[in-house]
């Protein structure tokens, strides 16, 4: 799949950047913040690399900005579980990195549910019926400790918006996962959530329906679809490591791109799956193994 390499910015982008720089200078003078993307990447912000430099290079600030709103949505309704899976891995990545930097590795793992704080997972009632309940033993596989997750199942999307905003502002919350299918999450609502995240510092990860492509205040938007996995070493027909196609369709201050990603269980981060996805390489490897 095409990995967009570090392309030089086009003329249009350059012009835009100039305008935004001018605005940034202005806002610095007046003390007001004119919401431009590139400003979002102020030096004080913690940005968490996802893993492969090819991905992080496209992201504003070289990773996922911790105190911001990020959106994940499936390409197709049938890809919803894949998107949820991507989301939970993203949360696990944010938590472990935030935890590591906050406690510099000395935190006692036992007795404290998650190093980076509590995960609040907000899944409204209608989604619970449709896509089930996140399953404890399986969450461990996704890198989230179920003991560190607080599940909230609001009745309506309005309630969900309220609780997402409250959760972001609560102390001791490491990451907030909110799932909202309906149209309740408009630009204003997403802006509120983004501002809350920006002010207080817990990352907000929102899962949305595949057709919610309207404007948003989110810093990044990922469109996820499932991809066939590579067979594991031990079996031809077995299930390999779960693979996603992640389209970065919105990245304020970054570059749009598309990746094939896998979860690297050893490094606890994402890794690029592209080299193996090419039809030609797999047989070559097989031949090499056979020889």
């Amino acid at each position, binding site marked *: 799949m095409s990995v967009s390499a570090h392309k030089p910015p086009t003329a249009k982008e350059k012009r835009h950047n100039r305008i935004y720089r001018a605005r940034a200078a202005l806002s610095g003078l007046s003390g007001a913040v004119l919401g431009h993307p590139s400003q979002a990447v102020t030096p004080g912000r913690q940005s968490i690399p996802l893993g492969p430099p090819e991905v992080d290079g496209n992201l504003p600030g070289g990773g996922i900005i911790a105190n911001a709103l990020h959106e994940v949505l499936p390409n197709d309704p049938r890809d919803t579980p894949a998107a949820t899976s991507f989301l939970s891995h993203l949360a696990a990545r944010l938590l472990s990195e935030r935890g590591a930097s906050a406690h510099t590795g000395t935190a006692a793992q036992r007795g404290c549910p998650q190093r980076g704080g509590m995960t609040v997972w907000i899944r409204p009632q209608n989604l619970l019926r449709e896509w*089930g309940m996140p399953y404890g033993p399986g969450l461990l596989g996704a890198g989230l400790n179920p003991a560190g997750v607080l599940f909230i199942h609001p009745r309506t999307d309005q*309630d969900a918006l309220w609780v997402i905003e409250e959760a972001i502002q609560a102390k001791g919350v490491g990451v907030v996962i909110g799932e909202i299918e309906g149209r309740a999450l408009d630009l204003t609502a997403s802006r509120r959530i983004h501002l809350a995240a920006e002010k207080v510092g817990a990352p907000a990860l929102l899962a949305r329906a595949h057709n919610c492509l309207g404007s948003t205040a989110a810093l990044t938007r990922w469109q996820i679809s499932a*991809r066939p*996995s590579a067979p594991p070493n031990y079996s031809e027909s077995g*299930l390999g490591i779960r693979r996603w196609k992640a389209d970065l369709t919105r990245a304020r201050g970054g570059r749009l791109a598309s990746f094939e990603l896998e979860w690297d269980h050893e490094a606890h981060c994402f890794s690029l799956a592209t080299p193996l996805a090419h039809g030609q390489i797999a047989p070559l490897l097989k031949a090499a193994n056979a020889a």
Partner: protein
Amino acid sequence: MSNFNAVDFDAPLTLVISTQGSFRLSACNKAAAGEGLSIGQLVTDARALCPGLQVLEATPEADARALRQLAAWATRYTPWVAPATGVNGIDGIFLDITGCAHLFGSEKELLTDLLRRLKEFDIAARACVTGTLGASWALARYGKGSSVLNRDAEAQALAPLPISALRLSDQTAEGLLQVGLKRIGDLAAVARAPLASRFGPEALMRLDQALGKASEPVMPQILEAPLRVRNAFVDPLVQTDAMVLAIEKLCAEMEVLLLERGRGARALKLTLFRVDGETATLEVGTARGTTDAAHLARLLAERLDQLSSDLDIGFGYDAAILDIPRTDALAASQVDLSADQKPFSGDLSSFMDRAGNRFGWARVQHVYPVQSHIPERAVMAQAAHVGPPSLDWAEEASRPAALLPCAEPIEVLAEVPEGPPKTFRWRKVAYRVSRAEGPERIAPEWWRAESASNGVGARTRDYFRVEDDGGRRFWIYREGLYGREATTPRWYMHGFLD
């Protein structure tokens, strides 16, 4: 006869209690005693003696409750008051008036005052002032009326009383009667050693207690004032903002009370009194005992806000009472020296409280592992305020990331015997399986009643982990073994693999 209003208190009246399969009299009034009825008699015998007898059921718990209340009232004479425990539960009140009698003049005057006030309450009472609890108990019930006795008079007054005046169990009293020891004087006169060896320590202990040879302290009932603060307003409140201010004031007062007692509030009840006598009640719960006034006020204010459409303010509320019906001991909390945010810090539980009170606690959950192989039973969700989450999760690689609330039937289009399906249809969409792992066989839990009776998990399941040609991953199972449990096994979709 159950209607209390229809009772004629001057005619023979008895209370009955069911003991050992028969109804016996537990109390009778003067008229009934005059007819020759006695306590302990069978109701049928009593009715034969006195045909017009009125019979009501005794309520020992209510009696005990009333006596406790009366004991609380009696603290006006002495702080050292306890409900008296006789042979059959609470049957009187003990007052230790040592050092208090002079406040009322003398012991005699205290007794007179007490009896007069009780008479004004319409309570028939007998009371005795003596040196010991045992003597008081005996003389108040079996003596010649209310009196004050000094130490020497006590022994003389006790001697002619029947031995049942010593608060003896029925068994001991009966045994003593059989050997002819009918009066307390008789008992005091016999040799102690044989008595103890024959009837056990009880009789002698009670005798010594009555005569003041053994100590028997009064264990006072400790009355704890309820956690309650009240506020009456000069003008009735009609605006929500004003009510929120009032709530904040009440909570600030409550915080002081809670801190004094070292208790944290687990539940709050705010009662608002409307000018016309109507009341409205707001109730909220908390996940952890808390004393934080700001947090409590916020919970109540949010509840008020939620209810505002249902709340008929009318001409306004002129008083409010805040009660704490349930508390926890307040754990000593460590002052945070570092700037780190700790998990389970106060704010997380306050967030949980607010979400729990807004949505209901059933919607704010932690999940707990359960020892079971049936996947849907291996996890239990529980309201987050019940306790902290469990930490002993075992990693199971083959488990899905999400489990459907009920396994959904799927239509298998191309089946391979004993293997995973080639294609299947779920929610009206066809999927072609390109990769599969399995089966993982999960047998029913035969030790459960439902398993035996074809309920949930009554059949063997063979789970397969499958991936379709688009990379979507499912956890599906076949229910029932070929040939043994089902002729045509059915397939179900159960979850989504990571």
